[in-house]
Protein backbone atom coordinates (compact mmCIF):
# COMPACT_ATOMS: atom_id res chain seq x y z
CA UNK A 1 0.00 0.00 0.00
CA UNK A 2 2.82 2.27 0.97
CA UNK A 3 4.45 1.63 -2.38
CA UNK A 4 1.23 2.28 -4.19
CA UNK A 5 0.82 5.67 -2.59
CA UNK A 6 4.45 6.40 -3.19
CA UNK A 7 4.08 5.60 -6.85
CA UNK A 8 0.96 7.71 -6.99
CA UNK A 9 2.59 10.70 -5.38
CA UNK A 10 5.79 10.36 -7.34
CA UNK A 11 3.80 10.08 -10.54
CA UNK A 12 1.85 13.14 -9.55
CA UNK A 13 5.06 15.01 -8.96
CA UNK A 14 6.40 13.91 -12.31
CA UNK A 15 3.15 14.99 -13.93
CA UNK A 16 3.38 18.36 -12.20
CA UNK A 17 6.94 18.97 -13.32
CA UNK A 18 5.95 17.83 -16.74
CA UNK A 19 3.24 20.44 -16.79
CA UNK A 20 5.74 23.00 -15.58
CA UNK A 21 7.95 22.14 -18.54
CA UNK A 22 5.44 23.92 -20.68
CA UNK A 23 6.49 27.17 -19.09
CA UNK A 24 10.12 27.01 -20.14
CA UNK A 25 11.80 26.95 -23.51
CA UNK A 26 11.97 23.53 -25.16
CA UNK A 27 15.13 21.55 -24.99
CA UNK A 28 17.88 22.89 -27.19
CA UNK A 29 15.99 26.06 -28.01
CA UNK A 30 17.49 28.16 -25.26
CA UNK A 31 17.95 31.68 -26.50
CA UNK A 32 21.18 32.87 -25.03
CA UNK A 33 20.61 36.36 -26.34
CA UNK A 34 17.75 36.86 -23.92
CA UNK A 35 19.80 35.88 -20.95
CA UNK A 36 22.53 37.54 -19.00
CA UNK A 37 24.88 34.81 -20.11
CA UNK A 38 25.09 36.26 -23.61
CA UNK A 39 27.19 39.05 -22.18
CA UNK A 40 29.20 36.72 -20.04
CA UNK A 41 30.08 34.91 -23.24
CA UNK A 42 30.84 38.07 -25.12
CA UNK A 43 32.74 39.51 -22.16
CA UNK A 44 31.11 42.88 -22.61
CA UNK A 45 29.18 43.27 -19.37
CA UNK A 46 30.86 46.53 -18.53
CA UNK A 47 29.91 48.11 -21.83
CA UNK A 48 26.25 47.27 -21.50
CA UNK A 49 23.82 49.66 -19.92
CA UNK A 50 22.02 47.47 -17.40
CA UNK A 51 19.05 49.80 -17.12
CA UNK A 52 18.41 49.51 -20.79
CA UNK A 53 19.05 45.82 -20.77
CA UNK A 54 16.55 45.07 -18.08
CA UNK A 55 13.97 47.16 -19.82
CA UNK A 56 14.09 44.77 -22.72
CA UNK A 57 16.49 46.66 -24.94
CA UNK A 58 18.67 43.62 -25.56
CA UNK A 59 21.87 45.03 -26.96
CA UNK A 60 23.81 42.97 -29.43
CA UNK A 61 26.76 41.35 -27.77
CA UNK A 62 30.25 41.91 -29.11
CA UNK A 63 31.24 39.22 -31.49
CA UNK A 64 34.86 40.16 -32.18
CA UNK A 65 37.65 37.67 -31.81
CA UNK A 66 38.41 36.92 -28.23
CA UNK A 67 40.85 34.08 -28.16
CA UNK A 68 44.45 35.20 -28.03
CA UNK A 69 43.61 38.87 -27.55
CA UNK A 70 44.19 41.10 -24.56
CA UNK A 71 42.23 43.67 -22.69
CA UNK A 72 38.94 42.02 -21.99
CA UNK A 73 37.09 42.57 -18.79
CA UNK A 74 37.66 38.95 -18.04
CA UNK A 75 40.63 37.07 -19.28
CA UNK A 76 39.64 33.47 -18.98
CA UNK A 77 39.10 31.38 -22.07
CA UNK A 78 36.72 29.07 -20.24
CA UNK A 79 33.55 31.12 -19.90
CA UNK A 80 32.16 28.83 -17.24
CA UNK A 81 35.22 29.53 -15.20
CA UNK A 82 34.91 33.20 -15.81
CA UNK A 83 31.38 33.03 -14.48
CA UNK A 84 32.28 30.83 -11.56
CA UNK A 85 35.32 32.69 -10.40
CA UNK A 86 34.78 36.14 -11.72
CA UNK A 87 31.27 37.19 -12.61
CA UNK A 88 29.67 35.12 -9.89
CA UNK A 89 32.64 34.65 -7.66
CA UNK A 90 30.53 35.29 -4.63
CA UNK A 91 28.58 32.11 -5.33
CA UNK A 92 31.81 30.25 -5.43
CA UNK A 93 32.84 31.69 -2.13
CA UNK A 94 29.57 30.37 -0.84
CA UNK A 95 30.25 27.07 -2.47
CA UNK A 96 33.60 26.84 -0.80
CA UNK A 97 31.91 27.70 2.41
CA UNK A 98 29.38 24.91 1.95
CA UNK A 99 32.14 22.45 1.57
CA UNK A 100 33.96 23.96 4.47
CA UNK A 101 30.83 23.87 6.55
CA UNK A 102 30.26 20.25 5.75
CA UNK A 103 33.87 19.43 6.53
CA UNK A 104 33.52 21.20 9.86
CA UNK A 105 30.24 19.44 10.36
CA UNK A 106 31.70 16.05 9.65
CA UNK A 107 34.51 16.82 12.05
CA UNK A 108 32.11 17.86 14.77
CA UNK A 109 29.73 15.00 14.19
CA UNK A 110 32.28 12.25 13.94
CA UNK A 111 34.80 13.77 16.29
CA UNK A 112 37.23 10.86 15.86
CA UNK A 113 40.67 10.66 17.40
CA UNK A 114 42.29 7.44 16.23
CA UNK A 115 42.79 5.82 12.86
CA UNK A 116 40.30 3.04 12.32
CA UNK A 117 41.89 -0.34 11.67
CA UNK A 118 40.16 -2.84 9.46
CA UNK A 119 42.60 -5.62 10.28
CA UNK A 120 42.82 -6.64 6.66
CA UNK A 121 45.91 -6.35 4.59
CA UNK A 122 45.43 -4.36 1.38
CA UNK A 123 46.31 -6.48 -1.64
CA UNK A 124 49.58 -6.38 -3.40
CA UNK A 125 48.49 -4.67 -6.56
CA UNK A 126 46.90 -1.85 -4.67
CA UNK A 127 49.91 -1.25 -2.52
CA UNK A 128 52.38 -1.24 -5.37
CA UNK A 129 50.28 0.70 -7.81
CA UNK A 130 49.57 3.32 -5.23
CA UNK A 131 53.21 4.17 -5.11
CA UNK A 132 53.22 4.65 -8.83
CA UNK A 133 49.92 6.35 -9.26
CA UNK A 134 49.96 8.71 -6.32
CA UNK A 135 52.32 11.33 -7.75
CA UNK A 136 50.55 11.13 -11.08
CA UNK A 137 47.17 11.63 -9.50
CA UNK A 138 48.34 14.57 -7.48
CA UNK A 139 50.02 16.05 -10.49
CA UNK A 140 46.88 15.59 -12.53
CA UNK A 141 44.86 17.27 -9.84
CA UNK A 142 47.18 20.21 -9.77
CA UNK A 143 47.08 20.41 -13.53
CA UNK A 144 43.30 20.50 -13.49
CA UNK A 145 43.01 23.42 -11.15
CA UNK A 146 45.89 25.35 -12.54
CA UNK A 147 44.38 25.21 -16.02
CA UNK A 148 40.92 25.87 -14.75
CA UNK A 149 40.54 29.04 -16.75
CA UNK A 150 41.58 27.43 -19.99
CA UNK A 151 40.11 24.00 -20.08
CA UNK A 152 37.16 22.28 -18.49
CA UNK A 153 37.84 21.70 -14.85
CA UNK A 154 38.99 23.93 -12.08
CA UNK A 155 39.50 24.05 -8.37
CA UNK A 156 36.75 21.71 -7.38
CA UNK A 157 37.55 18.80 -9.66
CA UNK A 158 41.24 19.31 -9.04
CA UNK A 159 40.83 19.30 -5.31
CA UNK A 160 38.62 16.26 -5.48
CA UNK A 161 41.25 14.40 -7.44
CA UNK A 162 43.83 15.25 -4.82
CA UNK A 163 41.50 13.99 -2.15
CA UNK A 164 41.10 10.82 -4.17
CA UNK A 165 44.83 10.35 -3.83
CA UNK A 166 44.53 10.61 -0.09
CA UNK A 167 41.71 8.11 -0.14
CA UNK A 168 43.93 5.79 -2.10
CA UNK A 169 46.55 6.14 0.57
CA UNK A 170 44.04 5.29 3.23
CA UNK A 171 42.97 2.20 1.34
CA UNK A 172 46.40 0.98 0.60
CA UNK A 173 48.07 1.56 3.91
CA UNK A 174 46.66 0.48 7.24
CA UNK A 175 49.06 2.67 9.12
CA UNK A 176 48.57 5.85 7.16
CA UNK A 177 46.93 8.70 8.92
CA UNK A 178 46.54 12.16 7.55
CA UNK A 179 48.26 14.89 9.47
CA UNK A 180 45.18 16.76 10.51
CA UNK A 181 47.08 19.82 11.61
CA UNK A 182 48.56 20.27 8.19
CA UNK A 183 45.30 19.66 6.41
CA UNK A 184 43.36 21.95 8.70
CA UNK A 185 45.95 24.69 8.37
CA UNK A 186 45.94 24.37 4.63
CA UNK A 187 42.18 24.40 4.57
CA UNK A 188 41.93 27.38 6.85
CA UNK A 189 44.66 29.39 5.26
CA UNK A 190 43.38 28.76 1.76
CA UNK A 191 39.87 29.70 2.77
CA UNK A 192 41.15 32.83 4.40
CA UNK A 193 43.16 33.56 1.31
CA UNK A 194 40.04 33.51 -0.80
CA UNK A 195 38.31 35.93 1.51
CA UNK A 196 41.47 38.03 1.62
CA UNK A 197 41.47 38.13 -2.18
CA UNK A 198 37.99 39.41 -1.93
CA UNK A 199 38.94 41.99 0.66
CA UNK A 200 41.92 43.10 -1.42
CA UNK A 201 39.49 43.53 -4.26
CA UNK A 202 37.30 45.58 -1.94
CA UNK A 203 40.28 47.74 -1.08
CA UNK A 204 41.60 47.98 -4.61
CA UNK A 205 38.48 48.19 -6.70
CA UNK A 206 35.83 49.16 -4.27
CA UNK A 207 33.97 45.89 -4.56
CA UNK A 208 34.31 42.67 -2.72
CA UNK A 209 35.97 39.98 -4.88
CA UNK A 210 37.03 42.61 -7.43
CA UNK A 211 39.47 41.31 -9.99
CA UNK A 212 42.47 43.43 -9.13
CA UNK A 213 45.06 41.80 -11.41
CA UNK A 214 45.58 42.41 -15.12
CA UNK A 215 43.82 39.96 -17.36
CA UNK A 216 46.50 39.16 -19.87
CA UNK A 217 46.01 37.32 -23.11
CA UNK A 218 42.95 35.13 -23.30
CA UNK A 219 44.06 31.56 -23.66
CA UNK A 220 47.50 31.76 -22.09
CA UNK A 221 48.33 30.23 -18.74
CA UNK A 222 49.16 33.48 -17.01
CA UNK A 223 45.98 35.29 -17.79
CA UNK A 224 42.56 36.01 -16.36
CA UNK A 225 43.71 38.02 -13.36
CA UNK A 226 42.94 36.44 -10.02
CA UNK A 227 41.06 33.51 -11.53
CA UNK A 228 43.96 31.04 -11.56
CA UNK A 229 45.03 32.18 -8.11
CA UNK A 230 41.54 31.73 -6.75
CA UNK A 231 41.26 28.39 -8.43
CA UNK A 232 44.52 27.32 -6.91
CA UNK A 233 43.42 28.27 -3.45
CA UNK A 234 40.15 26.54 -4.07
CA UNK A 235 41.91 23.49 -5.38
CA UNK A 236 44.16 23.23 -2.38
CA UNK A 237 41.33 23.99 -0.03
CA UNK A 238 38.97 21.46 -1.51
CA UNK A 239 41.77 18.93 -1.67
CA UNK A 240 42.65 19.34 1.96
CA UNK A 241 39.03 19.57 3.01
CA UNK A 242 37.90 16.43 1.28
CA UNK A 243 41.04 14.67 2.47
CA UNK A 244 40.07 15.77 5.90
CA UNK A 245 36.59 14.33 5.42
CA UNK A 246 38.07 11.09 4.17
CA UNK A 247 40.33 11.04 7.18
CA UNK A 248 37.50 11.78 9.58
CA UNK A 249 35.44 8.95 8.20
CA UNK A 250 38.34 6.60 8.73
CA UNK A 251 38.67 7.56 12.33
CA UNK A 252 36.94 6.08 15.27
CA UNK A 253 35.92 7.42 18.61
CA UNK A 254 37.21 6.26 21.87
CA UNK A 255 35.01 4.31 24.19
Amino acid at each position, binding site marked *: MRRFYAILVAAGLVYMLFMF*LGTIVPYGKADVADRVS*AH*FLAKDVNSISPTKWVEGDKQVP*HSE*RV*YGRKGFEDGSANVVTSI*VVNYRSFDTLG*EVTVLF*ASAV*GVGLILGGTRRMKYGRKPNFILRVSTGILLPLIILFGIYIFVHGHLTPGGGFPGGTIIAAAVLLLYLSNEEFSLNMIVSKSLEGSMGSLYVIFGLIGLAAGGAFLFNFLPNGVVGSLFSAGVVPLVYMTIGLKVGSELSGVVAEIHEEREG
Partner: protein
Amino acid sequence: MVYIISIILVGIGVYGLMTQKNLFKHLISLSIIDTAVNIFIVATGYVNGGKAPIYTKNFPSFAIGRFVDPLPQALVLTAIVIGVGTLAVGASLLVRVKEKHSSIDVENMKGVGE
Protein backbone atom coordinates in the same frame (compact mmCIF):
# COMPACT_ATOMS: atom_id res chain seq x y z
CA MET B 1 13.97 14.18 -23.77
CA VAL B 2 16.64 15.18 -21.29
CA TYR B 3 14.01 17.14 -19.43
CA ILE B 4 11.76 14.14 -19.20
CA ILE B 5 14.56 11.90 -18.05
CA SER B 6 15.53 14.32 -15.35
CA ILE B 7 11.93 14.65 -14.24
CA ILE B 8 11.57 10.91 -14.09
CA LEU B 9 14.76 10.79 -12.07
CA VAL B 10 13.20 13.23 -9.63
CA GLY B 11 10.20 10.93 -9.45
CA ILE B 12 12.45 7.97 -8.77
CA GLY B 13 14.27 9.87 -6.07
CA VAL B 14 11.04 10.88 -4.39
CA TYR B 15 9.71 7.35 -4.68
CA GLY B 16 12.89 6.06 -3.11
CA LEU B 17 12.64 8.51 -0.26
CA MET B 18 9.07 7.51 0.39
CA THR B 19 9.42 3.76 0.26
CA GLN B 20 12.85 2.89 1.52
CA LYS B 21 13.37 1.97 5.13
CA ASN B 22 17.11 2.26 5.09
CA LEU B 23 18.29 5.73 5.94
CA PHE B 24 21.30 5.46 3.69
CA LYS B 25 18.99 4.79 0.79
CA HIS B 26 17.23 8.00 1.73
CA LEU B 27 20.50 9.78 1.35
CA ILE B 28 21.07 8.16 -2.00
CA SER B 29 17.59 9.07 -3.12
CA LEU B 30 18.25 12.62 -2.11
CA SER B 31 21.39 12.49 -4.14
CA ILE B 32 19.41 11.20 -7.11
CA ILE B 33 17.06 14.14 -6.82
CA ASP B 34 20.02 16.49 -6.66
CA THR B 35 21.53 14.94 -9.70
CA ALA B 36 18.27 15.02 -11.57
CA VAL B 37 17.86 18.69 -10.82
CA ASN B 38 21.41 19.30 -11.96
CA ILE B 39 20.80 17.50 -15.20
CA PHE B 40 17.70 19.54 -15.66
CA ILE B 41 19.58 22.76 -15.05
CA VAL B 42 22.27 21.94 -17.55
CA ALA B 43 19.65 20.95 -20.05
CA THR B 44 17.94 24.31 -19.81
CA GLY B 45 21.10 25.92 -21.11
CA TYR B 46 21.51 23.72 -24.11
CA VAL B 47 21.43 25.26 -27.56
CA ASN B 48 21.06 22.97 -30.51
CA GLY B 49 24.46 22.52 -32.06
CA GLY B 50 26.10 24.67 -29.42
CA LYS B 51 29.61 23.99 -28.22
CA ALA B 52 31.13 24.06 -24.76
CA PRO B 53 31.62 27.71 -23.84
CA ILE B 54 35.37 27.75 -24.05
CA TYR B 55 37.24 30.00 -26.44
CA THR B 56 39.72 27.98 -28.40
CA LYS B 57 41.57 28.43 -31.64
CA ASN B 58 38.63 26.95 -33.50
CA PHE B 59 36.04 29.11 -31.84
CA PRO B 60 37.80 32.34 -31.08
CA SER B 61 34.81 34.62 -31.11
CA PHE B 62 31.26 34.77 -29.87
CA ALA B 63 28.16 34.32 -31.96
CA ILE B 64 24.59 33.55 -31.00
CA GLY B 65 24.05 29.83 -31.21
CA ARG B 66 27.68 28.95 -31.21
CA PHE B 67 28.01 28.28 -27.53
CA VAL B 68 25.59 26.76 -25.09
CA ASP B 69 24.50 28.88 -22.13
CA PRO B 70 27.40 28.80 -19.66
CA LEU B 71 25.51 30.15 -16.68
CA PRO B 72 23.54 26.98 -15.88
CA GLN B 73 26.76 25.07 -16.06
CA ALA B 74 28.36 27.39 -13.59
CA LEU B 75 25.34 27.04 -11.34
CA VAL B 76 25.46 23.29 -11.58
CA LEU B 77 29.07 23.34 -10.56
CA THR B 78 28.03 25.04 -7.38
CA ALA B 79 25.03 22.80 -6.92
CA ILE B 80 27.12 19.68 -7.26
CA VAL B 81 29.47 20.80 -4.55
CA ILE B 82 26.55 21.59 -2.33
CA GLY B 83 25.20 18.12 -2.98
CA VAL B 84 28.54 16.66 -2.00
CA GLY B 85 28.55 18.64 1.20
CA THR B 86 25.07 17.43 2.05
CA LEU B 87 26.06 13.89 1.30
CA ALA B 88 29.14 14.09 3.48
CA VAL B 89 27.26 15.48 6.45
CA GLY B 90 24.45 13.01 5.94
CA ALA B 91 26.80 10.08 5.76
CA SER B 92 28.64 11.11 8.88
CA LEU B 93 25.34 11.59 10.67
CA LEU B 94 24.37 8.09 9.64
CA VAL B 95 27.58 6.72 11.08
CA ARG B 96 26.58 8.19 14.42
CA VAL B 97 22.96 7.17 14.04
CA LYS B 98 24.08 3.62 13.54
CA GLU B 99 26.19 3.85 16.69
CA LYS B 100 23.48 5.38 18.78
CA HIS B 101 20.41 3.54 17.57
CA SER B 102 22.23 0.36 16.53
CA SER B 103 20.67 0.39 13.09
CA ILE B 104 20.00 2.68 10.20
CA ASP B 105 16.85 0.85 9.27
CA VAL B 106 13.88 2.96 10.23
CA GLU B 107 11.99 0.00 11.60
CA ASN B 108 14.82 -1.44 13.65
CA MET B 109 16.13 1.70 15.25
CA LYS B 110 16.14 1.70 19.00
CA GLY B 111 15.43 4.60 21.27
CA VAL B 112 13.69 6.76 18.71
CA GLY B 113 10.66 7.64 20.74
CA GLU B 114 9.24 11.09 20.64
